[in-house]
Every structure is written in structure tokens, then in C-alpha cells.
């Protein structure tokens, strides 16, 4: 434990006891002088005690065993009854200090007997303040002593002992000496700690001696929650396999105490399907199973229930429906109606031109295709999932299709693809109506419209699974069409619809494209990304091979193009968060053409360690960025993003990464500076921290237009779905500042749309469940967009603006919707406030601060936590996010 950083002040007994030893030892450096001095001003009482103790010491040296025993027992009595404040050494210990050496000498001379053990016990306690550092005499004498109740000597003694044990354990491990006696002691200490609200210390000790399994025996119903919360939060700071081990124990404990939702969340963190199944089979309460399904749905996990998990066919179907997210649209619209934001918004409502002075507001008489395209995206982002808007859909009574058609054709060429696809975004998650409304575009003669319709089908199905597999049925026949835009539409649509599903049919359909030497590079890139999304974090060998071959076969000149750089990303997504599993592939990538080699290496590393908080990897990336090259090297962009991807896991690493990125801004080359805003965006996605906002605002006026564009888009990303007034104001000013610069203005518009994403009901954060779980598909979607933004001009500002729709993968309602036992929305009062870190704190501390009471459904901002403000119901999940089923509390008595 002492090797890893200390997560909070109460943790880590090892380091703590060391610290105390140090403080106590300060006076012992020059004991005589001080003691002499003190002798003079000792009170009478103390003097008596001192003389008494001196007498005991003399008697211990006596030859008579009986006398010795009496003396020792009296001495023990004195020590045990002594009380003292935190800052000073108990008086008996202080007075006995000069005699420690004498007693030690005496002990050596004594024959083995009970008395000798008694003396060993006392020496063990005295060693607490006396023994030189590293000697571990306290432990030594403890092992020689009577092995009695360890707690009888007090808490501090136990802590000190624990510290010495971990040192001794390390030493014995290296010498391969037996550790049985130590483990016996550990048992005692752990039992003591667990009984006395010191779970973190018990956990730390067990981690030091690498025997966490012991913990399971000692937890009980009063302390398992605190124990597990300490285990799960410390997992983020542990290296290598230890973190998995720790979470494994947490899972075991949760299962032991039937805390299934938490067990499920832990199982999801471990990405262990077996454990997930176990949770389902262990629990026989149908309602609780429904809650599990909601948790799985939020995580975007593809999961098939079998008869073992739910025997009844009809019930299983209903559970599967929840996992398939079929009710997400309904819940989201319930929230929207409750908050009264159903009214569709136009892009003008977002731009708010009336707040700007004169010139920028003057509407041009001629349509600008670029600005119309921006409006298409803004309209799609703002009205995402609401099933209605003012450009693409028209009310059913006026279903002539006139308005919809006209807006579609107010976009130019490839812009029409994005416009048609935007209908999918507006009808997000509502598969039935979405497919019906998109149908008309399938019969168009315009290839761009068809491409957009295909993409729209993918967007509508994003995160939703349907037993009929409409997306696959519709899109499959288009992936081998001649027209590249139709192909890309179908391929990207499949990627969005089946992200994370590991659907073999899709693999079989898409992998041949990678081997097709006639396919253009852009088709290839989208295929690789889609395969990466469908098989995200799966380490699938077959697909990895296919992408590697595609990269090797392409001629050198193509490898320098922007789209070639998306192929390694597809490869990286296969290993998202899988750490060492990437190594074999990373080795192969070293044989690539030098144009892409470094880039591929960075991409693979950053994907594999995404969300792990691995400090060594962050340092590795920083090292890569510190190099200066004459010509802009493309691999440094992914390296900068890699810092963010790895460090985004936990708060401390995140803050450090933000600071490091500031340095890169100052000292980095231009290609690094362009990536920094994007890295900041990933670190603070949908979480507008003021310092980051200021940095980005500054960069949005940068003289390098690419830095400015990245900063503007990043402003949108950090404010995504927050309606943050400050960012909205900044962007409005930027829109008038850049009103002549079409490219920058386009970025500003996109950012404005993002800030008002889903009218402020959505978040892009891949983290959920109190920032514990990371949704791999959401992260994959974000990373894909950020990679595309590394070369803004070629991709987003070129013909491939629909790459922005990859954000759909990360879009989730940031809500708490409580439902009753029939899964109907139920309004209850809840307190919503800033979450407080209570890990390792004793008692029942407040978990939120600065709260307000609302009735559900409510919105949760980044870092917010909710708790029920009524006793009438009990939630079936400890994490109040997304859908939570409430059960009536049988013990509840109404006051009236």
C-alpha cells in the first residue's frame, strides 16, 4: 500500500503508523537530557508513578519468579489503565522508556516460562515507542509473547503492529520464509479492526499480506458496505492485477450479503459476464431482476437472458425488453414532459441572434449551404430524442411532407446525407416511429439522401436492441453498393446500431470489405471503425487481423491521408480498456510503414489503457509529447488524447492531467496544441469546470485557426447537454466574432447545438453509476469523434461531417426516473446535491451537500447525487440514477 498513492487520509494504516512512530520518536532522540529536566517539574502523582514503575523494573530483575510475575502484572495494569491524549505518549510508557534496554537484557537471560511471555508482551508494547525504525521489535516480542487478546493494548498498538507486519511480510516474501505465525496475527488484527470501524486498515493490511480472501470471513452486515466502498474506490489506485482482485473480493462480499445491485455494478466493472449471470441466478425476486436489467441497459451491455436466469417465458421477455432499452424513449419523454421542454426548438432559438448587436444578425438573403448544414446539426442535437422539431418533422395533420422535404433539399450534396440522418437523431431510441419516418427517404433517387436514411436507421437504433434486427435487415443489402456514400452510410449505421453487441453476422458482412483492395480509403476507415465499435473491448483476433492486413496492403502514399489514421483507431477500439491484451497487436504494429507506425502505436496504447488511470502510461504519453519535430508528426495528436483517455478515470489523475496539458500548451508544437483542447474536452465531458472553460475560451481566439476550431468544438463538448449559460454566452460572442469565417462559424454553431443537447436533458459522459462504471461504447463514440477532430479540415469540415453522429453513442439522459412496481413513473420527493466522498469515513456521514428537494423525475448534473427524501419507498438500487424501481416500505407509518 505504501507504494501506491493514498486515496484518502483515513486509509493506509501502514504509512500512518510509520508516521506516528516518527512523531513519537522525536523526544527519544535525546532522552536523558529531557528526562532530567522533566524530573524536576514532575507533579507528585507522576513522581510516585515513576518511582513505582522503577520499582517494578527492579523486581522484574529479581531472581524470584513469583515476584517477577507480580511485578510484570502490575506493570501491565499500569500501562493498560493509562489514558493519554492523542499527542503525547502515555505516562507509564514514558517512564519505562529508560528501562527498555534493561528489560530487554533481562528477557534474554530469563528461562522460558509464562513469566517470560508476559515480559515479552510488555516489551512488545514498549517497543511501540522505543524500538529503532526497521527493527520491528514490537512484532518480534508479540510473536514471542502470550498471544493474548490483541485489542487489550489499545488501537495504536494494533496499528503499529499491522505496519510492522507488512514490513516483515515483505522481507519474508523475499527470503521465502514461512509466514504462518504472521498470518495468525493478521487474523487477530483484521478481526479487531473490523469490529472497531477500522475497515480501511483491515483492508490495507490484508492487501499488504496479499490475502484479501480473509476479509470475507470477517465482514458482517454492519460493516460490509463501508468495506466494499473502500475496496472499490481503492481499486482505481492499484496497479496491475491487484485492482481486479480487490473488486473480485468486493463482488464476493456483496453477493454474500445479497447486495445484488452493487454486486452487479462491480461485475460490470470487472466486465465479467459470468458474474453478471450469477447475480441473476442468485436472486429470485423478479422486481429486483428488473432493476438489474435497468442497470445493464444503462451500461449499454448486450446481454441475453436464458431460462436459468428467469424461468418464465413471458417474464423473461419483459426483462429482456428492459435490457434492450426499448422503453428508454418513453422514459426520456416522460422526463421531458415533466420538465415541460417538449416544445421543439429551432436553431434560431439557440443562436439567439437578437442578443447580438447589429451586423451578425443581419440575415443573408441567400442560403449558405454551410450554415444550413450547421443548422441541420444544431436542430438534430437540440431536439434529439424528442420526436418533433421544426425542420425535419412536420405535425401529422400537415403531412404533405412539404416542410420536411424543403429543409432536406436546403442542404447541398453530402449535406443532404447529414440532413436525412438528422431525422434519426430527432427520433432517437424510438425505433418504431423512426423507421416509419425514415422510410420515405429510402425511395429517393438521390444517393446522398439514401445514405442519410441508412445512417439514420443506425442512429435511431443506437443503444436499442430489437429481436427483429431491423437495422441489420435494412442496412445489410446496402453495404456492397457501388456508391461510396451509400456504403459509408450503411456501414456507419451498422456500427452505431450494433455497438458493443459483438454480432457475428455483422462481422461476417463487414470484414470482407477490409480485404477489398478496390474499396476506397474512406469506406475502409468507416468499416474499421464500425467493426471496432461492434466488437469494442472484445480483443477479437479475427477482426484485428483483418484491419492489420488492410493497413499493410495499402500503398504508402495512402497511409499519409487523414482517413488512414482512422484504421488504427478501429483496431484500438477492439482493445478498449483491455490493458495488456493489446501487447501482441502492438508488436505487430511496429512492423507497419513508418508513416503510420508511431501513430498506430499511440492509438493502440491509449485505447488499451483508456479509463484505467495508469500513471505510467500517462507519463509515457507526456514523454512522447515532449519531443520536438521539424515537421508536424501526426502521432503526437493521439498521444495527447491518450493522456486524457487514460487519466479520465479518477478525479486526482484528472486534475493532474489538466495541469500537464496546460504545460503542453505552452511548450508544445502546433500539432500538440491542436490536440490539447480536445483532450481537455474528453477530461471534462459534459462537466464544465470553470478553469477548463477559461482555458478553452482563451484558445478559441488563438491565431492558429485549427487550435481555435478545436477549442470551440471542445467548449461545446464540455458543456454538452448542460445549457450552461456562460458557455452559451461565450459561443454567442464567438459567432459574431467569426461571422465572416465560414469554417469557424460552423464550429461555433456545432458547439452551440452541443451545449443545448437534448435541450439540456442529455449528457455525453461515458461514466455513470456515480462515476464508477465506464460505458465502453460511449467512450468509443467520443474517441472516434475526437480523432476525427484532430484533422478538422479534412473530415468534419469536409465531406464527412456526419462523423459527428458518432456522439449518439455517448448520449444518455442525465435523469433520475423513479418507477413503481409496474414500471410506471412514480413521483417522489428526492434530495439532489453535490456528491460527497464518504469512502473510509466512520459512521453514517452525509453523502450529499448543498441539496435541494425536488420531485422525480429530476435532472442530475455532473457530480450530483440523489437520495430519497421519503421513507415511504425503498429504492431497489443504491445508485439513484436512470431508472430506479421503488418498492413500498412495509414499515412506513404515515404521520397523520
Amino acid at each position, binding site marked *: 500500500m505504501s507504494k501506491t498513492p493514498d486515496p484518502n487520509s483515513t486509509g493506509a494504516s501502514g504509512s500512518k503508523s510509520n508516521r506516528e512512530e516518527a512523531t513519537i520518536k522525536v523526544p527519544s532522540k535525546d532522552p536523558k537530557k529531557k528526562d532530567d529536566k522533566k524530573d524536576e517539574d514532575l507533579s507528585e502523582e507522576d513522581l510516585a508513578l515513576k518511582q513505582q514503575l522503577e520499582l517494578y523494573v527492579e523486581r522484574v530483575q529479581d531472581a524470584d519468579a513469583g515476584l517477577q510475575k507480580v511485578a510484570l502484572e502490575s506493570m501491565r495494569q499500569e500501562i493498560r489503565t493509562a489514558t493519554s491524549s492523542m499527542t503525547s505518549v502515555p505516562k507509564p510508557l514514558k517512564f519505562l522508556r529508560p528501562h527498555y534496554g534493561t528489560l530487554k537484557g533481562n528477557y534474554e537471560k530469563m528461562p522460558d516460562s509464562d513469566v517470560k511471555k508476559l515480559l515479552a508482551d510488555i516489551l512488545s508494547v514498549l517497543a511501540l515507542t522505543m524500538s529503532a525504525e526497521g527493527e520491528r521489535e514490537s512484532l518480534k516480542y508479540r510473536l514471542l509473547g502470550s498471544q493474548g487478546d490483541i485489542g487489550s493494548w489499545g488501537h495504536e498498538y494494533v496499528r503499529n503492529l499491522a505496519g510492522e507486519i507488512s514490513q516483515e511480510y515483505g522481507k519474508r516474501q523475499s527470503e521465502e520464509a514461512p509466514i504462518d505465525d504472521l498470518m495468525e496475527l493478521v487474523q487477530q488484527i483484521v478481526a479487531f479492526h473490523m469490529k472497531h470501524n477500522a475497515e480501511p486498515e483491515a483492508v490495507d493490511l490484508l492487501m499488504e499480506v496479499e490475502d484479501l480472501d480473509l476479509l470475507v470471513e470477517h465482514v458482517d452486515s454492519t460493516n460490509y458496505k463501508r468495506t466494499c466502498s473502500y475496496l472499490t474506490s481503492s481499486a482505481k489506485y492499484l496497479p496491475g492485477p491487484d485492482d481486479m482482485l480487490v473488486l473480485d473480493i468486493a463482488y464476493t462480499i456483496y453477493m454474500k450479503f445479497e447486495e445484488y445491485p452493487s454486486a452487479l455494478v462491480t461485475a460490470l466493472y470487472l466486465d465479467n459476464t459470468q458474474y453478471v449471470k450469477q447475480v441473476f441466478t442468485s436472486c429470485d425476486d423478479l422486481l429486483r431482476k428488473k432493476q438489474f436489467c435497468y442497470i445493464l441497459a444503462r451500461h449499454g451491455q448486450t446481454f441475453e437472458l436464458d431460462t436459468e436466469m428467469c424461468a418464465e417465458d413471458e417474464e423473461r421477455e419483459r426483462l429482456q425488453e428492459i435490457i434492450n432499452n426499448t422503453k428508454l424513449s418513453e422514459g426520456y419523454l416522460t422526463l421531458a414532459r415533466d420538465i415541460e421542454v417538449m416544445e421543439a426548438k429551432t436553431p434560431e432559438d439557440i443562436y439567439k441572434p437578437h442578443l447580438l448587436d447589429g451586423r451578425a444578425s443581419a440575415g443573408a438573403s*441567400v442560403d449558405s449551404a454551410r450554415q444550413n448544414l450547421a443548422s441541420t446539426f444544431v436542430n438534430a442535437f437540440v431536439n434529439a430524442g424528442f420526436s418533433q422539431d421544426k425542420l425535419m418533422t412536420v405535425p401529422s395533420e400537415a403531412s404533405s*411532407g412539404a416542410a420536411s422535404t424543403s429543409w432536406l433539399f436546403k442542404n447541398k450534396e453530402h449535406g443532404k446525407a447529414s440532413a436525412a440522418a438528422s431525422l434519426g437523431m430527432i427520433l432517437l431510441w424510438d425505433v418504431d*416511429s423512426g423507421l416509419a419516418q425514415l422510410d420515405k427517404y429510402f425511395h429517393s433517387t438521390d444517393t446522398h439522401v439514401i445514405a442519410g436514411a441508412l445512417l439514420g436507421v443506425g442512429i435511431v437504433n443506437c443503444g436499442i436492441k430489437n429481436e427483429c434486427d431491423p437495422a441489420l*435487415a435494412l442496412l445489410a443489402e446496402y453495404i456492397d453498393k457501388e456508391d461510396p456514400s451509400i456504403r459509408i452510410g450503411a456501414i456507419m449505421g451498422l456500427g452505431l446500431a450494433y455497438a458493443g453487441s459483438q454480432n457475428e453476422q455483422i462481422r461476417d458482412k463487414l470484414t470482407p470489405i477490409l480485404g477489398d483492395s478496390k474499396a476506397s480509403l474512406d469506406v475502409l476507415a468507416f468499416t474499421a471503425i464500425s467493426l471496432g465499435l461492434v466488437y469494442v473491448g472484445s480483443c477479437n483476433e479475427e477482426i484485428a487481423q483483418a484491419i492489420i492486413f488492410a493497413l499493410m496492403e495499402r500503398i504508402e502514399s495512402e497511409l499519409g491521408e487523414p482517413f488512414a489514421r482512422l484504421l488504427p483507431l478501429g483496431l484500438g477500439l477492439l482493445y478498449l480498456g483491455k490493458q495488456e491484451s493489446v501487447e501482441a497487436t502492438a508488436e505487430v504494429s511496429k512492423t507497419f510503414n513508418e508513416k503510420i507506425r508511431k501513430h498506430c502505436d499511440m492509438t493502440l496504447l491509449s485505447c488499451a489503457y483508456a479509463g484505467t488511470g495508469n500513471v505510467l502510461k500517462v507519463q509515457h504519453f507526456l514523454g512522447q509529447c515532449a519531443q520536438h519535430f521539424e515537421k508536424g508528426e501526426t502521432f503526437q495528436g493521439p498521444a495527447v488524447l491518450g493522456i486524457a483517455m487514460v487519466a479520465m478515470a479518477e478525479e486526482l489523475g484528472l486534475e493532474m492531467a489538466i495541469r500537464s496539458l496546460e504545460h503542453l500548451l505552452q511548450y508544445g508544437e502546433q500539432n500538440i496544441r491542436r490536440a490539447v483542447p480536445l483532450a481537455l474536452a474528453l477530461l471534462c465531458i459534459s462537466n464544465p469546470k470553470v478553469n477548463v472553460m477559461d482555458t478553452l475560451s482563451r484558445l478559441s481566439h488563438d491565431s492558429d485557426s485549427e487550435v481555435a476550431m478545436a477549442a470551440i468544438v471542445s467548449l461545446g463538448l464540455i458543456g454538452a447537454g448542460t445549457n450552461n449559460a456562460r458557455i452559451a454566452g461565450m459561443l454567442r460572442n464567438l459567432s459574431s466574432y467569426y461571422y*465572416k469565417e465560414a469554417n469557424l462559424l460552423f464550429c461555433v454553431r456545432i458547439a452551440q447545438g452541443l451545449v443545448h443537447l437534448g435541450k439540456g436533458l442529455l449528457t455525453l459522459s461515458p461514466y455513470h453509476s456515480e462515476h464508477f462504471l465506464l460505458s465502453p461504447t460511449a467512450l468509443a463514440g467520443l474517441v472516434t469523434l475526437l480523432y476525427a477532430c484532430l484533422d478538422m479540415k479534412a473530415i468534419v469540415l469536409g465531406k464527412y461531417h456526419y462523423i459527428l453522429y458518432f456522439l449518439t453513442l455517448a448520449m444518455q439522459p442525465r435523469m433520475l426516473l423513479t418507477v413503481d412496481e409496474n414500471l410506471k413513473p412514480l413521483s417522489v420527493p428526492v434530495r439532489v446535491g453535490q456528491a460527497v466522498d464518504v469512502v473510509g469515513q466512520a459512521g453514517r456521514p452525509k453523502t450529499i451537500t448543498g441539496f435541494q428537494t425536488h420531485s422525480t423525475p429530476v435532472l442530475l448534473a455532473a457530480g450530483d447525487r440523489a437520495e430519497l427524501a421519503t421513507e415511504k419507498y425503498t429504492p431497489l438500487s443504491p445508485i439513484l440514477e436512470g431508472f430506479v424501481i421503488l418498492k413500498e416500505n412495509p414499515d412506513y407509518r404515515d404521520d397523520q
Partner: protein
Amino acid sequence: MVDHVTTIYQCTLPFHEYKINSRGHLPFSTSKLSHPNSKQNQKPLPSPHPANAEAPITMVTVSVKWQKEVYPAVEIDISQPPYVFKCQLYDLTGVPPERQKIMVKGGLLKDDADWSKVGVKEGQRLMMMGTADEIVKAPEKGPIFVEDMPEEEQVVNVVLRKKYPQFGQQSNGAFMQQDAEECWTQLLYTLSQSLKLPSSSEGLDVVKALFGIEFDNRIHCAESGEESTETETVYSLKCHISQEVNHLHEGLKRGLKSELEKASPSLGRSAVYVKDSRINGLPRYLTIQFVRFFWKRESNQKAKILRKVDYPLSLDVYDLCSDNLRKKLEGPRQVLRDAEGKKAGLKTSVKTSVSTAGDSKMTEAEESSSGSGEASKSTAQEGLLPEEEHQLTGIYDLVAVLTHKGRSADSGHYVAWVKQENGKWVQFDDDNPILQREEDITKLSGGGDWHMAYICMYKARVVPM
């Protein structure tokens, strides 16, 4: 429903032997159908009875989901091609078969697929996609985007800025305010370069005929007694404003006399010359600029003179003209005076009958345009008489004023006030036209923070000869 049935006959031509009942099910001959009752009560078919196992099972009941609706019991005759099934669905949903997309395992259901290979199961839920909506058609004429246009048309200003880079000056990212007079001069210059009268052989240009003012300059050095004359053509008269100038006429007069210093060949050093200008040729339209902006050296900026300078609605430039020109003008002026006298006579002598048609026109015009009769008269006559018979009189009528509001040359607001054909004045404030009274036009003479005249445009009063 009747419509559907009729259409379905058309679309099911190859299968015309099947009749479709109103519930959307195809009736079958009893030999094919093992359970004739099941058709009536609409229940899913029970699993095959062992009793009639010899008859091939051809009916499968599925539920079909279309949009938000579910059709719970739809029977499929798996011995028939799926097209028949689609026709059934057409009856239920109104979606034409060719627009139906039915999702089955492994893709969409093809019209000619084999049901046994598709593998539908009893009670399976199928999903159908498709609408009877109108198919999206591109508008005949697509919108025109800024990006499509040739660069020059995107903004008119772009051309101006390209031709005269001085108008493209920027400060703080925005284009700076420019001088209206400078712009006017440049426009006239450009026009004079490109517009030539096709008839005139010697290249007499239109702009010069319309706006050009010919000057006779006499440069005289008091010290050496040297004297020289030259002619020059300018496009506007300058009204210099100083302490003594209260009226346009005074300003113009002062503008004709100027002192300049130049090297004198006889003295061998620079000497003060006096330049005395006289107008030798008058234009059809006289442009007058009030020199209100000047470079203030001490504050290093373009300052504006706010002094009030009156200008008349009709201007006589006779005393600015050279003797030559005066002689030429005498005749027409006399005619004009006579005409006016006559008119005055008409007015005084009540109920004298109007003699000529031209005169009657004059009075009509006068009546209609209340007080601006002279200008209207000339307009009226222009239409009647050929060009060459017009003679300038040296008298001009005000037809347009360009005003500037604001304290400096780099800021403020330019507004045009223009007299219309009907004699009414209209103020053009950006894209916002406002009707104005004639008496208010003379109040734009400055002296405050209100709009003040910067450029005045006068139109010559002509007489027929």
C-alpha cells in the same frame, strides 16, 4: 376498404386466382385448409393435429408489428410466395407491397423467397417497415447557395474592395467606415472608364457630359507677374467651410480662389501663385461636396466640421462662370425669365385662358407638385423635346442630398434623401424608406448632431430653344 380491394387486384395480377376477403385473409380451398373453422374465429392455429398429419401444414400464424401497432394474428400460407403475404399486409396497413420491408432472419423478406427457407415459426413476431407517404422528391429547382456563386456576386462590397483596396481597411476584424465622397469619385471614375457613347467618334464620355465641370484656371504669380491658363475637368464642386462661410454660395466662391506655392521658372525659386478658377462648362448634374472632414494634425485623426452651411433648393451658378459661358447662358436665361414672367402673369391675371398645350402641362405639374414646379416642369419637358434643343441656364434644382450623422469620419451613419419623380422627398435609411417634407430637406444644413448634408446633387434647369 373498397379502394384497397380494387387496388389489390391490380397489384396481385399474377395471383388473380386468389380472392381476398375483407379481413385481409386469403380464402383457401378446403382441400388445402385442414381447419376451415380457424379462419373464422381468428385464433392462432393450433399445433398440427395428429389426425390430419397427412395434409401438409401450410398455415403459420404470426404477429406483425408495424410502427406502433401490432396485428396479433396474421396467417401465412407458406405454400404461397411471400408476395401474397405482403398483399395481406397491404390490406391491413395500406402500405403497397413494393414499399413493404419485412424483417426476417438474415435480412428482408424477398417477394419470391421460399417460406421454408425463411423459417417462420408459429407465433413469431415479424416487423414490417414502410409507409404510404409520398416519396421525397427533390424540388425542381434547388436552392442557390452562397458557396455556389461566383466569388464576385457573393457580396457587392467584395468587388468594390477588390478594385479599391483602400475600402477594404479593417479594424478590430470589421471593415472600417469609408468616406462617401471618395466612393462616389471612384464610382464615377470607373464609370467614365468603361462607359463610352457609341455614337461619338472622339470618345466623348457620358459621365463627363452628365457630371463633368469644366474649369478655366488662371494661375497668376503676383511677384513675377507670370500668368498661365489651363483647363481642367472635375466631377464635383467643393464647398470649403471656414468661419465666414454661412451659405453654400459663399463656400463655392471661396473655392474658386486658392493660393499655391510652386517653383517659379523665372524667379528660380518657389513663389506664391494665385489660382483663379472659373467654370467654363456646366454639367447636367452638379455635384457639390461640403468639405466637412479634414485631417486634424494635433489629434491625428479625421475631424468633422459641424458648422451650419445653408444651401438653397435652387442654385444659380451664373456668377461662378467664365465670361464665355455667361454669354452662352444669357439666351436661355432670358427665355427662362420670360417663361417665369409669363407664369407670374398667369398667376396674377385671374381667369386668363391657357393658350398652349405646353403651358397647360406646366400648370398641371405645378399644381401636382406644390411648390417644386420648376423641376417638374423640366422633367415634363424632357419627355416632349429632343435632347439637342435643351439649353442649360446655369440654374440648378436640388434633387438629392447625402447626409452624414456622427462626429467623425470613421464612424457615423450615411443617409440619402432623394426627390422622386412626383416631387416627393424620400429618406433612404439603409433598407428603410421614409417619406419627408421638402422644408425638412433644407434643415439638413448642419450645426448640430442631426444629419447634415455632405454631398448635394443638383439637376440643371433647362429651357427649350
